C-alpha cells in the first residue's frame, strides 16, 4: 500500500510542478481537463472496470453533478465548495436509483439500459428550460465561490480530487471490495454461492462511482462556467469516460490517468489546430483510439506493457499435488441432531417437474449421498437448497431457520457451502484469491481471510498451487480448489455436486481421501455422485431420486440391493437378473 501511495504523491507533485511552469492560459485549461477526464475515467473504472458491467451511461452522474453545482449557485447562491460535495451525494443517490432496478439485467442488456438514463435526463433538462445555464461571476469574493483568475488554482483543485479518487480506487483494489468485484466479474453465480452478496457490492461500487463522476461533473461546470444538457449528458461524455479507461488499462488504478494524459491533449490539440476545418476531429480521435485498442490490446495499453515485460520472467514449473495424510478409518456415523430438514420441496420448469415433493433430513456429522440417474433432479435439488432457484412450494429448514427467499450469499453465510458439477472457478484470479473470496463470509478482517484461505488450501493439499492462475489448473486441481473455497467459509454443511466426475481412478482416491478427512473432522456433507462404488465407501446413508421424486433411502448396502433402485438405474430386465 505504501509504494502505490508514494507513486500517487509523486505523480501529483510532478503534475503540479508542470502546471506551475506553464504560462499559457490555454495549456493550463488543457492540464485541468486532462485531470477532469482522468477522474471521470477512474469513476467509470471503479464500477465497470472492476465488476465487469459495462456502463454506457456514466454521463448521467457527470451531468447531475454539473447541474447540482450550477443550479445551487444560480438559484440559492451556494458556493461550489459546498455544491460539489452535495453533487456527490446526488451522484450516490442516482447510483442507488439507477443500480437497483438495472442490476436485474446482465451483459449487453445492462449496457443498453445504462445508455438510456443520461439521454432521458438530457431531454428532461432541456424541457425544464436549462438549455444553457451560465455560472455567474462573483466579483466580491471570488475565491469563496471557487473562482480564480489564475487558472493554475483549478489544476491544484483537480489534482486534489484525482488523488482522492485514485486513493479510493487503490483502497478498493487492495481490499475485499475489489476482490469481490473481480469475483463477480469472472463468475457472478460462483461469487454469490461463495457468500459474496453480489447485489450489495455492485450497489456500493456504483455509489462510489456515481459520487466520483458527479464530482468530476460539478468541477467541470465550475471550470467551464456554462452547462448545457448536451455537453454533460451527451453520449460523448459517457464514451470519453469509457474510452480513456479502456485505452489506458481497464481494472487498473493508473489506466484511466494514462489514457487521459495521452488522449485528451491529442484530441484538444487537433481540435485547436484543425477544428475550424475539421469540426468533428475530436470524436474521430476518440473513436479511432478505441477501435485500435479493441483490436490490438483489448485490456488497454498498461496491462499490455506489463505483460510484455513479464513474459520473459514467468516460467513457473508445474508443481505436483501435495500429499495428504490418508483419512483415518472412519466409523460410520449414525448422525447427531437434525441440521437440515427438507419439507415437501417442489420445483417445475415449464411442464417439467424437476423436483417433486421431496422431503428428507440431514443429521449432524453424517455423509448423505444422493444418487439417481441422469436428469433425476439432483442438481436442481442443490440449486433449491443453496438458493440459486426459488422453490415453487415446500421449504428448507437449516438449524431451525427457514431458508425460503434467502439469497445464495445469505444461505452461505448461515453455513451451507457448495461445489459445482460444472466447475465455476474465477479463472483469471490466483488459486489463493479464489479461496480467499470464499473465506470473506466467515472472516471480517481481510488478513484473517487470507490465513483461512491458506489453511483451507493446506487441508486439500493445494498449497503449492496457491500462486497459479485458476484458469491453468487441471480438473482434479479445480475440484480441490472448489472444495477449498467451500470449506474456507467454515461451513457446517457442505453440498458437493459430482465432485468425482471426470476424474481418473487415482484422482478419485485422492478426492475420496480429502472428503473422508473433512467428514472425519466433523463436517456434515451431502454429496451427489454417480459412481456407486465410491458412494458406498463414503456415505453413511443414501437417498435415491428418480424423475424428481424420492425413490428410496437408507443404508448404502440396502439401497443398492433395492429392486426399485436397480430398475430406475438399469431398467426392468436387470431387476430379475439381479434377483437370481
Amino acid at each position: 500500500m505504501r509504494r502505490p501511495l508514494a507513486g500517487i504523491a509523486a505523480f501529483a507533485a510532478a503534475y503540479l510542478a508542470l502546471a506551475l511552469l506553464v504560462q499559457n492560459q490555454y495549456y493550463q485549461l488543457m492540464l485541468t481537463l486532462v485531470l477532469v477526464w482522468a477522474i471521470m475515467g477512474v469513476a467509470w473504472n471503479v464500477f465497470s472496470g472492476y465488476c465487469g458491467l459495462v456502463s454506457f451511461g456514466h454521463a448521467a452522474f457527470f451531468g447531475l453533478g454539473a447541474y447540482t453545482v450550477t443550479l445551487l449557485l444560480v438559484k440559492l447562491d451556494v458556493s461550489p465548495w459546498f455544491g460539489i460535495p452535495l453533487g456527490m451525494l446526488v451522484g450516490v443517490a442516482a447510483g442507488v436509483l439507477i443500480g437497483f432496478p438495472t442490476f436485474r439485467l446482465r451483459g449487453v442488456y445492462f449496457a443498453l439500459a445504462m445508455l438510456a438514463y443520461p439521454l432521458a435526463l438530457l431531454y428532461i433538462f432541456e424541457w425544464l428550460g436549462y438549455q444553457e445555464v451560465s455560472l455567474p461571476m462573483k466579483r466580491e469574493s471570488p475565491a469563496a465561490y471557487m473562482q480564480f483568475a489564475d487558472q493554475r488554482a483549478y489544476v491544484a483543485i483537480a489534482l486534489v480530487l484525482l488523488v482522492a479518487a485514485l486513493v479510493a480506487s487503490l483502497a478498493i483494489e487492495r481490499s475485499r471490495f475489489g476482490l469481490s468485484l473481480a469475483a463477480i466479474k469472472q463468475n457472478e453465480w460462483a461469487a454469490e454461492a461463495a457468500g459474496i452478496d453480489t447485489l450489495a457490492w455492485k450497489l456500493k461500487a456504483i455509489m462510489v462511482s456515481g459520487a466520483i463522476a458527479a464530482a468530476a461533473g460539478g468541477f467541470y461546470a465550475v471550470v467551464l462556467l456554462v452547462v448545457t444538457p448536451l455537453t454533460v449528458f451527451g453520449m460523448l461524455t459517457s464514451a470519453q469516460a469509457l474510452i480513456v479507461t479502456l485505452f489506458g488499462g481497464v481494472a487498473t488504478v493508473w489506466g484511466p490517468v494514462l489514457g487521459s494524459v495521452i488522449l485528451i491533449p491529442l484530441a484538444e490539440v487537433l481540435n485547436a489546430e484543425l477544428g475550424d476545418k475539421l469540426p468533428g476531429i475530436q470524436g474521430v480521435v476518440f473513436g479511432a483510439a478505441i477501435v485500435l485498442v479493441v483490436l490490438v490490446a483489448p485490456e488497454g495499453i498498461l496491462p499490455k506493457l506489463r505483460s510484455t515485460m513479464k513474459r520473459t520472467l514467468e516460467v513457473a514449473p508445474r508443481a505436483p499435488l501435495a500429499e495428504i495424510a490418508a483419512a483415518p478409518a472412519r466409523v460410520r456415523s449414525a448422525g447427531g441432531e437434525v441440521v437440515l430438514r427438507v419439507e415437501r420441496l417442489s420445483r417445475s420448469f415449464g411442464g417439467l417437474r424437476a423436483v417433486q415433493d421431496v422431503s428428507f433430513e440431514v443429521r449432524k456429522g453424517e455423509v448423505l449421498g444422493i444418487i439417481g440417474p441422469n436428469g433425476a433432479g439432483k442438481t436442481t435439488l442443490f440449486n433449491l437448497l443453496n438458493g440459486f432457484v426459488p422453490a415453487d412450494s415446500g421449504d428448507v429448514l437449516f438449524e431451525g431457520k427457514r431458508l425460503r427467499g434467502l439469497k445464495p450469499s445469505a444461505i452461505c453465510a448461515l453455513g451451507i457451502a457448495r461445489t459445482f458439477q460444472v466447475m465455476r472457478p474465477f479463472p483469471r484470479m490466483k488459486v489463493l484469491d479464489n479461496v480467499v473470496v470464499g473465506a470473506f463470509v466467515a472472516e471480517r478482517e481481510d488478513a484473517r481471510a487470507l490465513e483461512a484461505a491458506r489453511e483451507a488450501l493446506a487441508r486439500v493439499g493445494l498449497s503449492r498451487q496457491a500462486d497459479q492462475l485458476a484458469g491453468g489448473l487441471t480438473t482434479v486441481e479445480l475440484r480441490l480448489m472448489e472444495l477449498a473455497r467451500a470449506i474456507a467459509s467454515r461451513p457446517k454443511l457442505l453440498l458437493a455436486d459430482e465432485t468425482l466426475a471426470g476424474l481418473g481412478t487415482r484422482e478419485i482416491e485422492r478426492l475420496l481421501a480429502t472428503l473422508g478427512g473433512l467428514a472425519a473432522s466433523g463436517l456434515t456433507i451431502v454429496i451427489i455422485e454417480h459412481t456407486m462404488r465410491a458412494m458406498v465407501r463414503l456415505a453413511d446413508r443414501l437417498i435415491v431420486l428418480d424423475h424428481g421424486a424420492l425413490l428410496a433411502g437408507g443404508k448404502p448396502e440396502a439401497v443398492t440391493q433395492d429392486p426399485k433402485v436397480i430398475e430406475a438405474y438399469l431398467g426392468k430386465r436387470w431387476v430379475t437378473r439381479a434377483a437370481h
Partner: protein
Amino acid sequence: MSHVVLENVLQALTAGLLVGSIYALMCVGLGLIFGVMRVINFAQGEFLMLGMYGTLYAYGALSLGRFLGPYAGPIAGALLAGIALYFAGILLHRYLLARVTGMRVAGTEGEGHYPQLILTLGLSLILSNAGLIVFGSTPENIRTPLSASAWEIGPLAGDDVSVFLNKARSVAFLVSIAVAIVLYFFITGTRIGKMLRAAADNPEAATYMGIDVERAHRIAFGLGCAITALAGGLVATYYPFQPYVGLEFVIIMYAGVVLGGMGSIGGAFWGGLTIGLVQQLSTLVLPVQLQNTAIFVVFLLIMMLRPEGLFGRNVERA
C-alpha cells in the same frame, strides 16, 4: 370538444402507424444483424445517417427529382443509398468486425460481447464525427413538393373530423411495407435466406452442414446496414437531419428490437411499429420535448419486466 379529442387521437394513431412502419424497417436492419451475428451494433444510427446523406446526394446530384418525379425520385435515391451501404457494410465486416465476432462469440453470452460493443461504439464516433467534417453541421432535408402537403381523409364521424396524411410520410410508409414484404420472402424463400437462418439458429451445426457462417454474417451485416440506410433515406424526406442524427434514432431502434424480442427479425418489425405508435400517442399527453423520454421509459420498462420482448418467441435472457 370531444370531436377535437377524437380527431387528435385519430391523427396521432395514423401518424404513429406511418412513422412506426419506417421505424419498423430500421429495426429490422438492426434486428437482422443481432439475430444472425448476436452483435449489438452501436453504429446502426450512423448507417441510418449515411443513408440520409446518401439519399440526399443521390437525389440532388443525379437530379432524380427531375427524371422520376417527387414520388419515385427520393425512393430511387434511398435505394441507391441502401445498395451503397450494403457494400460498405460488407467491407466493414470483412476488415473490422470479423476480427471480434464470428463463431467464437455467436454462441456465448456475457463477456465475449463487450469487444464488439466497444468496437461499434468507436465506429459510431468515427462515422458521426467524420460526417460532421464531410457534411457540415447545417441541418439538411430533402425538399419535395410532398414534404409539406397532405391528403385529407374525411370528413369522418360528423363534418368536422378528418385525418390528414402527410404525403411524404405516406409514400415512405408504403415503401417500408413493400421492402419488409420483399425481405420476408427473401429470408423465408431463398437459399441465402435459409443460410442466414441456419447460421442464426446454431452457428456450429450450420458449419457442420457446410454453411459458410463467416459469409452469412457478412451478408447479414451488409443487408442490415442497407435496410437501415434505406429507412434513413425515407425518413430524410420528412425530417431534417444532421450528422449526429443517428443517436436520436439508435435508441428507437434498440427499443423496437428489444420490444420485439432480441433475435427475432419479425419481432423487430412489430416492435418498431409499436415504438412509433408510443411516440406519437405520447404527444397527446406529454410535451413534445419529452417524446423521446417516453420512448426511453418504455425501453427501460420492457428491459426490466420482459427482457424476452413482447412478440418474440426466441426467448433469450442474458
